[in-house]
């Protein structure tokens, strides 16, 4: 075999996009001596071809000869007066390299036999830098230690992945005689993240069995019992002390979130909290399912890979729901630290928020776009406390035939693994994501980061749907956290399963049986197949080059038996595995924090405040992100994330038509207000529910068909006050779901979002509850969007404006938190949502916008600049509470349950009649003078700004 090396770079005259981006990032580090960066793609090919073929490969496959040049071999520093620094970034051994896989395919189409292909990136930095600066550029801009190696100058290239075969060696863990310290030590040493009580439970079990566990048994228990997999915190019994009052929950989740769904008992809920995603009815033939997951810890370490596998993983949830759904839409919500934070203020072991943001956005972009699934809804929230613990929520919605919503695996079925091969990536992902992060995680847990290949998943999806429709398998689930151990363990829970681990196809040799079993390598799913169908389904997968392998069978002995080359390496009782975990009782407390309303002098004009809020990161336009996502693929787009005269106004919710030949639509929205949680998590949670409902109703979705999802992201819940905050929010989830009659259908929690700095300080994220909502639109032609449509039309605010500036953006820009957090009058709020829906459905409404972050003033400004018209408003017309008497309160209060509605003048009577008994008032008109003008109750011109200025303030902060 020969080792060929190719370098491919842009021809002079063609922009070097990659190099330019790197140069910008270097300047952001404060290094200004680099004048130019050249980038090149490097291919390392082990193959048996000669020079003439190498030239063909370079010219026909690897190089775009119109705009690129190639070099066979390793080029040195370019001639010239400037100092040149050569840096090469190689993937660490074992990290998935999708481009290499495609190059192998391309070369074999050309007729070459190839042993191995690897790719790398090369950068030539022109300009004077010190070695320390070079190292900093490598670390902060070019490479990620977790997955990549860097070489300088003419250093030797890293060797290709070792391929030494694995030789079986079964290891037993002597656990029976350990004392408590020994148990804790063992858990820590093996990164099991099991606490003492859990270790004791396992010890007792093996003492009863009169033997010690093998390593694979212990690992299986750790995976299955991880917080990530069983939610042991939120399902524990809780004794809550709240303002002196005591409340007991037998099972926190079951007594709050699940209970609402059970009590509501909606006939259109098909499968809730039971499968990988919640399933509800769509039309008479089809159901729709929805799941939102977090991928926080991996995204903190490797933002690009972590976020990409976050979206890749959640797509497999609907694919693994029932007999498999077809993904039709993605959602993503991110929480980051402040993008302008000083580099010196970043804790050790943490990436800069801007780098995290860019990485996360491009990770979701590259995976979601390649899958051909539109990303239709999302949000980004910034707070300093997310710096070390960014939150990455990815959601996916899928369509599934009504008669395929349930699985039916049976004893005697064959276990097959399909999709990607198994490698060392992602080992201990589930346990790692369940613990607290420290500054050392970067190095210790690099193996927990998984790298995805969207095309492997897309190929799997294309074939799976064919296999499903031909009835070739009995059950399906995804290999997510815990890998095969969780997938097979869960699917065989009531049956028993036997797995031959040596049969699992590997990316490279050398994995031991435990690594195979718990690897979280991406793009894999497990199916249960009747023996007589194995041939047919194998052919179907092979026809489109999808890996599919028989690895075991479901039995009837209720045991999980693991073998390697015929030899048993572990055996667990399914019952102990799934039910053996000890139940916890926890203490929770919550006290109303002592907070005050700030004293702020009244002013005659609030132009500066409005512009300040519009340009605050949380309110500012997210167009930079939205446009990088394909939000229209699959052709079902009806209400896009950006709309209005210039396609740049912020939509409240998204609507798609998942069946192109039907007018029925699915609407999606979200609500999240971490700032309110600093005052009271109860009202934070209700505000999130109210906001998600408002948003979805604004576009014309049915309020009686809204299903919601919860994602709890909190700090360390062993602290009673942190758990108390979770309990407060859970109670609100129950009250909100019942009051609005919106069942929860799925949820997920991510706890321990804390970071231990090297100086010993702990940083916890703000309590964060994401509510995602999905509903049905009967006729998408009736949907409305938020942009002002026509001068002369009337504007109404429906819903009561109250003195509720606590946690508002108005206070935030002035450096206050406040105390009067927005509350929700659930009864009125639910009635308001129904009336707004009726008005839209009757065709009375030409635009409708939710009044939320930044209050009325922001809402009106957005409608005006999205529509390209002016608005003239008078606060006298506002329906308001008695104590809401200041102009700034009326402009910026973030009271919930409010809608701004645009009506044609001749529809006034009909609209007013419909709103009877709901607080509402006519606030103004759409004008053609392109200015937003608002008068206070005492006739002061409190806002007077042209829409260009407003739009600019809103668009500039996040145009990266």
């Amino acid at each position: 075999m020969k080792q060929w090396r190719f370098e491919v770079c842009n021809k002079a005259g063609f922009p070097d996009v990659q190099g330019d981006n790197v140069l910008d990032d270097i300047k952001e580090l404060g290094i200004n001596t680099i004048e130019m960066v050249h980038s090149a793609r490097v291919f390392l090919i082990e193959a048996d071809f000669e020079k003439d073929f190498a030239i063909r490969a370079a010219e026909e496959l690897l190089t775009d000869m119109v705009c690129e040049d190639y070099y066979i071999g390793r080029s040195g520093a370019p001639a010239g007066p400037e100092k040149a620094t050569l840096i090469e970034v190689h993937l660490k051994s074992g990290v998935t390299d999708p481009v290499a896989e495609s190059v192998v395919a391309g070369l074999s189409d050309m007729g070459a036999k190839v042993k191995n292909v690897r790719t790398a990136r090369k950068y030539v930095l022109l300009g004077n830098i010190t070695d320390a600066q070079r190292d900093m550029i490598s670390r902060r801009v070019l490479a990620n230690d977790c997955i990549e190696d860097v070489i300088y100058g003419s250093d030797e290239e890293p060797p290709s992945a070792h391929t030494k075969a694995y030789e079986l060696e079964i290891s037993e863990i002597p656990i029976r005689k350990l004392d408590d310290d020994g148990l804790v030590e063992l858990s820590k040493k093996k990164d099991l993240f099991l606490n003492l009580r859990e270790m004791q439970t396992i010890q007792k079990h093996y003492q009863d069995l009169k033997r010690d566990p093998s390593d694979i048994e212990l690992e299986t228990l750790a995976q299955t019992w991880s917080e990530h997999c069983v939610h042991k915190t939120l399902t524990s019994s809780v004794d809550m002390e709240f303002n002196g009052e005591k409340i007991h929950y037998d099972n926190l989740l079951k007594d709050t979130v699940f209970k609402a769904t059970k009590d509501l008992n909606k006939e259109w809920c098909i499968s809730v909290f039971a499968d990988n995603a919640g399933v509800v009815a769509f039309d008479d033939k089809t159901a729709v399912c929805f799941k939102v997951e977090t991928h926080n810890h991996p995204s903190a370490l490797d933002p690009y890979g972590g976020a990409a596998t976050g979206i890749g993983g959640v797509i497999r949830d609907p694919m693994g729901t029932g007999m498999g759904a077809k993904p039709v839409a993605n959602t993503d919500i991110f929480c980051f630290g402040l993008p302008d934070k000083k580099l010196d203020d970043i804790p050790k072991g943490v990436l800069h928020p801007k780098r995290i943001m860019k990485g996360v956005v491009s990770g979701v972009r590259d995976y979601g776009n390649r899958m051909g699934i539109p990303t239709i809804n999302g949000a980004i929230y910034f707070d300093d406390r997310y710096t070390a613990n960014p939150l990455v929520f990815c959601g996916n919605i899928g369509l599934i035939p009504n008669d395929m919503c349930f699985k039916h695996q049976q004893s005697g079925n064959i276990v097959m693994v399909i999709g990607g091969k198994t490698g060392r990536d992602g080992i201990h992902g589930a346990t790692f994501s369940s613990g607290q992060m420290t500054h050392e995680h970067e190095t210790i847990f690099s193996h927990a980061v998984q790298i995805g290949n969207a095309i492997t998943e897309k190929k799997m999806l294309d074939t799976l749907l064919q296999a499903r429709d031909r009835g070739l398998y009995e059950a399906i689930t995804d290999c997510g956290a815990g890998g095969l151990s969780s997938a097979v363990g869960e699917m065989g829970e009531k049956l028993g399963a036997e797995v031959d681990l040596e049969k699992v196809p590997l990316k490279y040799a050398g994995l031991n049986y435990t690594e195979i079993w718990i690897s979280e390598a991406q793009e894999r799913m497990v199916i249960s197949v009747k023996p007589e169908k194995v041939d047919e389904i194998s052919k179907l997968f092979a026809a489109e080059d999808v890996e599919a392998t028989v690895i075991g069978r479901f039995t009837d002995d209720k045991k999980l038996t693991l073998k390697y080359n015929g030899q048993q390496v572990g055996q667990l009782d399914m019952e102990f595995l799934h039910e053996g975990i000890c139940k916890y009782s926890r203490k929770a407390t919550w006290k109303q924090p002592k907070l005050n309303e700030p004293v702020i002098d009244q002013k005659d004009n609030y132009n500066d405040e409005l512009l300040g809020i519009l340009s605050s990161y949380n309110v500012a336009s997210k167009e930079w992100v939205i446009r990088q996502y394909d939000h229209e693929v699959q052709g079902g787009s009806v209400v896009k994330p950006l709309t209005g005269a210039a396609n740049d106004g912020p939509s409240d919710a998204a609507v798609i038509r998942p069946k192109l030949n039907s007018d029925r639509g699915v609407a999606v929205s979200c609500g999240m207000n971490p700032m309110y949680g600093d005052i009271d998590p109860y009202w934070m949670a209700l505000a999130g529910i109210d906001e998600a409902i408002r948003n979805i109703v604004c576009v014309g979705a049915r309020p009686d068909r809204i299903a919601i999802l919860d994602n709890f992201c909190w700090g360390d819940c062993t602290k009673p006050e942190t758990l108390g905050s979770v309990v407060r929010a859970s109670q609100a989830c129950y009250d909100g779901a019942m009051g609005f009659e919106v069942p929860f259908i799925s949820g997920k929690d991510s706890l321990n979002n804390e970071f231990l700095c090297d100086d010993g300080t702990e940083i916890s994220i703000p309590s964060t509850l994401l509510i995602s909502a999905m509903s049905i639109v009967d006729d998408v032609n009736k949907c409305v969007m938020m942009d002002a449509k026509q001068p002369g039309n009337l504007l109404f605010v429906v819903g009561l404006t109250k003195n509720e500036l606590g946690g508002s953006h108005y206070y935030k820009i002035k450096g206050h938190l406040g105390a009067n957090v927005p509350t929700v009058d659930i009864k009125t709020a639910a009635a308001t949502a129904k009336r707004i829906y009726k008005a839209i459905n009757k065709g009375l409404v030409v635009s409708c916008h939710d009044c939320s972050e930044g209050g009325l003033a922001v809402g009106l400004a957005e409608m005006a600049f999205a529509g390209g018209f002016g608005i003239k408003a008078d606060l006298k017309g506002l329906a308001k509470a008695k104590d809401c008497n200041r102009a700034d309160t009326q402009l910026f209060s973030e009271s919930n349950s409010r809608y701004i509605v645009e009506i044609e003048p001749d529809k006034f009577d009909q609209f007013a009649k419909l709103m009877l008994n709901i607080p509402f008032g006519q606030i103004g008109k759409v004008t053609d003078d392109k200015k937003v003008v608002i008068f206070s109750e005492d006739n002061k011109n409190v806002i007077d700004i042209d829409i260009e200025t407003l739009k600019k303030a809103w668009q500039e902060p996040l145009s990266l």
Partner: protein
Amino acid sequence: MKQVKALVLRAAGVNCDMETQYALEKAGALAERVHINRIIENPSCLDDYQILVFPGGFSYGDDVAAGKILANQVVHHLADALKKFISDGKVVLGICNGFQVLVKTGILPGFNGGDNINLKDLPVSITNNDSGKFEDRWVHLEPAGDKCIFINPGQRIYLPIAHGEGKVVTKDTATLDRLKSDGHVAFRYVDSEGNTGKFPINPNGSTDSIAGLTDPTGRVLGLMPHPERFVHNTQHPHWGRLKDRSRADGITIFNNAVNYVRDNL
């Protein structure tokens, strides 16, 4: 009326095949999605179809370069079959990634007709957007010339783009001159008044604002924008503001293809 049959080609990473099939059927064709492995197994299956569409997506992940690996596969396995398809007077459409494939196989601009199907000495390519990133946005397109059977001469249309590599580049200025003088330019990016301009009017920095190319026969069209994403009025980004609620510009491309086959084949 004659049943027009269209083949929508699938491959690993192709992802606009379903909506392209829907658009073709809305235009009156019978459209089938067929995996490239099936065509390689039996290239003569193309004889059953009069329209061949390379739909959008990320074939093979756009690894190496957009459309490159699929182009490589097509040239090595299907060159003869495609040459015959085109010389039989049939029609070929490449959308987004499909356009990239048509250019990287030499089928477009196809200066020498079907003989140009190969991977060497290509005169034109499609490369990274000047913005350096993937973008989804709507653009106005002005048809250039009247040779291409897919377009309504003189009718400006509005369609979305969604790509990271859409900048059309030529080997040299002589190539560009030839594209223009021989009528290879099918569409240019313009503003709502029909004027060419910088970003975002020209969303990717494409040479001479080129958005689509046709071959010497006018029966092969490749374009970066997605006509299949505007076959319903409600796909327009602000349809709620439109006076004409029947507008769906993208369907004209598919209608013209189907009508051409009905009238000529």
